[in-house]
C-alpha cells in the first residue's frame, strides 16, 4: 500500500520534472542577450535545474500530503469563511474603527512621505475598486476597460484646468459627468452582449481610448503627456511656499510653518472623502429600486426580463455610475500627479482594478479594502522586482479563483431576501 503510493508519487514527480524542464528549459535556461547588436544565447542551466528539482519534489510531497488528507477525511477548514463570519458579526464596529484609523493615519508618528504616498495610492485603488464594484459586483457585468473612464476623468480634468483655469472643485463634477457620458456612449451598444463577450468588448474600448490619447497630438500631446496640471487648493488657498504677490496661502492663512506635507495630507483627506462618498453611495443605492434591479439582473436576467425590468437601461445606469466614479478618481489622479500620459492608463491598470474587485469577493465593499491592501501591498513589497511582482500578482489571481472562486469574502447575499435570512 505505502510502497505503491511512493512508487506512484515518484513516477508522477518524474513526469512533473520532465514537463518543468520543457517549460523552463528554453525560456529560462536560454536567455537571449544582445551583444554588439547581435542576439546570442546565454545558458543558465543552474536556475533551470533548481526550478525543475523544486517542481518535482514539490509534486512528490503534495501527492503524499493529499493522500494522507484523504485518509483523514476531515472537514476542510476555511479561513476565508471564518473571516467572512467574523466580519458579518462585527462588521459595523470594524468599519467605524477602520474609518477612524484612516482619519488619524496622517498624524501617526510613522506616517512619513513614503507611507502617505502608499496610503494615497491605496485609497485611489479602493475608490476605483468601489466604483467598479457597482458594475461587476452589483450588476454582474465584467468590465475590463474600466481604466478608460479613469483616463477620461483625468484628461478632462487636466484639459479644463489647463485651458480654462477652472478650479478642482468645478472640474471634478465635470470630469465625472464626462466619464459617465462615455460610459453611456460605450455601454449603449454593447450591454446586451453576454458576460465574456462584454468583457472583451470593454477591453477593446479601453485600448481604443488609449490609442486615441496616444495619437491625438493636438489635444492630448500624445505620448509626451500633459504637464503643469494645477494642484488643488484648500478652498481657494493654494499650497505654495512662495505664493504670487498678494495671494494668501494655506500656511499664512492658518499661521503655520510651510511644510510640503500639508499638501500631501490634504490630498490624502481628499481621496478619503471621495472614496467614502463612493462607498456611502453604493450602500445607499443597493437598497433603492435600481440597486435591487442590478442585483436581480446579476442573479437571473431572463427572470428579470419576464418581470418587466428593462435590462439595458438598468445595466446602463450601473455602467454610467461606475464610470462616473472612475472619472472622479481620474481627476484626483491628475491633480495629484500634475502630469498624465497614456502610459498610466494601460490594460494592466484595468486588470489590477478587476483583480481587486474579484479577489475581494464581488459585491463586498469590505472585500475591496482587504484585497487592495493585500494586492497593492504585494506590489509595493516587491517594488524592486518589477516583473516578478507581476508574476506573483497574476499567480494570486489564478490561485484565488481556484480556491475561492467567489473571492476572499465570498459574500453574495442579496440585500433583500424573502422570508427568513439564511
Amino acid at each position, binding site marked *: 500500500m505505502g510502497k505503491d503510493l511512493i512508487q506512484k508519487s515518484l513516477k508522477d514527480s518524474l513526469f512533473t520534472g520532465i*514537463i518543468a524542464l*520543457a*517549460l523552463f*528549459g*528554453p*525560456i*529560462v535556461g*536560454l*536567455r*537571449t*542577450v*544582445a551583444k554588439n547588436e*547581435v*542576439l*546570442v*544565447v546565454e545558458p543558465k542551466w543552474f536556475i533551470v535545474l533548481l526550478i525543475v528539482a523544486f517542481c518535482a519534489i514539490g509534486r512528490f510531497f503534495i501527492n503524499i500530503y493529499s493522500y494522507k488528507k484523504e485518509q483523514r477525511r476531515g472537514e476542510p477548514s476555511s479561513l476565508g469563511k471564518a473571516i467572512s463570519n467574523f466580519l458579518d458579526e462585527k462588521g459595523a464596529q470594524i468599519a467605524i474603527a477602520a474609518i477612524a484609523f484612516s482619519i488619524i493615519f496622517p498624524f501617526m508618528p510613522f506616517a512619513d512621505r513614503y507611507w502617505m504616498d502608499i496610503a494615497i495610492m491605496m485609497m485611489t485603488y479602493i475608490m476605483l475598486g468601489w466604483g467598479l464594484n457597482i458594475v461587476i459586483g452589483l450588476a454582474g457585468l*465584467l468590465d*475590463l476597460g474600466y481604466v478608460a473612464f479613469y483616463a477620461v476623468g483625468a484628461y478632462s480634468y487636466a484639459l479644463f484646468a489647463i485651458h480654462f483655469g477652472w478650479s478642482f472643485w468645478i472640474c471634478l463634477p465635470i470630469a465625472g459627468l464626462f466619464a459617465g457620458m462615455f460610459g453611456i456612449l460605450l455601454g449603449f*451598444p*454593447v450591454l446586451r*452582449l*453576454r*458576460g*465574456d*463577450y462584454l*468583457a*472583451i*468588448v470593454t*477591453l*477593446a*474600448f479601453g*485600448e*481604443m481610448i488609449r*490609442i*486615441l490619447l496616444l*495619437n491625438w497630438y493636438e489635444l492630448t500631446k500624445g505620448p509626451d503627456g500633459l504637464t503643469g496640471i494645477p494642484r488643488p487648493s484648500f478652498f481657494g488657498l493654494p499650497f505654495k511656499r512662495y505664493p504670487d504677490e498678494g495671494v494668501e496661502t494655506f500656511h499664512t492663512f492658518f499661521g503655520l510653518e510651510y511644510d510640503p506635507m500639508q499638501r500631501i495630507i490634504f490630498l490624502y483627506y481628499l481621496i478619503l472623502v471621495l472614496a467614502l462618498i463612493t462607498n456611502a453611495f453604493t450602500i445607499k443605492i443597493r437598497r433603492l429600486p435600481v440597486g435591487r434591479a442590478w442585483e436581480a439582473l446579476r442573479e437571473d436576467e*431572463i*427572470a428579470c426580463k419576464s418581470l418587466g425590468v428593462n435590462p439595458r437601461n438598468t445595466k446602463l445606469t450601473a455602467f454610467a455610475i461606475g464610470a462616473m466614479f472612475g472619472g472622479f478618481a481620474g481627476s484626483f489622479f491628475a491633480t495629484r500627479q500634475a502630469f498624465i500620459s497614456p502610459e498610466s492608463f494601460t*490594460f*494592466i491598470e484595468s*486588470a489590477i482594478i*478587476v*483583480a481587486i474587485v*474579484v479577489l475581494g469577493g464581488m459585491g463586498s465593499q469590505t472585500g475591496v479594502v482587504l484585497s487592495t491592501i493585500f494586492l497593492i501591498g504585494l506590489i509595493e513589497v516587491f517594488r524592486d522586482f518589477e*516583473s*516578478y511582482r*507581476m*508574476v506573483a*500578482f*497574476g*499567480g*494570486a*489571481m*489564478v490561485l484565488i*479563483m*481556484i480556491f475561492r*472562486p*467567489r473571492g476572499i469574502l465570498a459574500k453574495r447575499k442579496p440585500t433583500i431576501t424573502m422570508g427568513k435570512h439564511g
Partner: protein
Amino acid sequence: MEYFLQQLINGVTLGSVYGLIAIGYTMVYGIIGMINFAHGDIFMVGAFVALISFILFALTGISLPIILILVLLIAMIFTACYGWTVEKLAYKPLRKSFRLAPLISALGMSIVLQNYVQAAQGARIKTLQPVIQGGFNFFKESDFVVTLSYLQIFIVLVTIVLMAIFTLLITRTALGRAQRACEQDRTMTALMGINVDRTISMTFIIGSSLASVAGVMFVMYYGVIDFYIGFLAGIKAFTAAVLGGIGSIPGAMLGGLLIGLIETFWSGYISIEYKDIAAFTTLVIVLIFFPTGFLGKPDIEKV
C-alpha cells in the same frame, strides 16, 4: 492597382498568422465555452522558443530547410507543453465554477506568462536577422514594384498544409470525433466511454501548437518581438474567431484572413497610427450586429 496588389499580398500573409491563432480560440470556446485569454501569450511563448532555436541553429550550420522544419517542430512541442500546463493549472479546477471564473483565471495566467517571459528574457525587444531572403518582383517597369517574398509564400504554404492536416484530424480521426462529441454534450460523451479530460487536454495541445507555428512565422516575418506581442495579436485573433463565427474552425481561418486584410488595407489607405483601432472597431461592430459571425451557430439562451 500595384499598391492594391501589394496590400493584398501582405494582408493574406498577416491573415494566415491570425487565422492560426484564431483556431486555438475557437476550438477552446467550442469545447469548454470559455475565452482562453492566455492564448495570445502562448503564441508569444512560441515566438520566443522559435527565436531561441533560430539563434542556436544558426551556429550549427545545418541547411535552411532542415532548420525550418526543426524550428517548427521544436516550437510546437515546447509551446504545446505550455498550453497543456496552463489548462491543467488554471482552467481544469474551474470547470464547474461560475461563468466568469475561468475568464479571470485566464487573465491572471496571461499576466503571469507575460511577466515571466519578461523576467526570464528581458524587457528589451529582440531582433532576428532575416532567415529567408529574396522574392519575386512584379511590374518592374511601373513606378511601384510589387514584391512577393519567398517568406510570404512559405508562410501561406505552411498555413495551407497545416490547415489540411488539421481538417483531416478533426473530420477523420477518433480524436476529432471525440472533440466534436465533447462540443455537443460533455456528460453524454463521458458516458460513452470517452476520456473527456484527455480530449480537452488534446484540444489545448493542438491549439497551442498551431499558435506556436504562428509565432514562428511572426518572428520570421517581422523579425522583432517582445514579451508584449501576445496581447494585441491575441485580441486580433479573437476578433477573427468571432468574425468567422466562434466555434467554427473554417470560420476561424476565414476570419483571420479578413482581419489580416482589413488591417493591412486600413494601414495602407487610411492611417497607420490607428491600425489597431481597425481590428477593435471590427470586433465591436461584429459583436453588436452579428454576434454569430459568418459560419457560427446561433446561440440560444435557455432558462
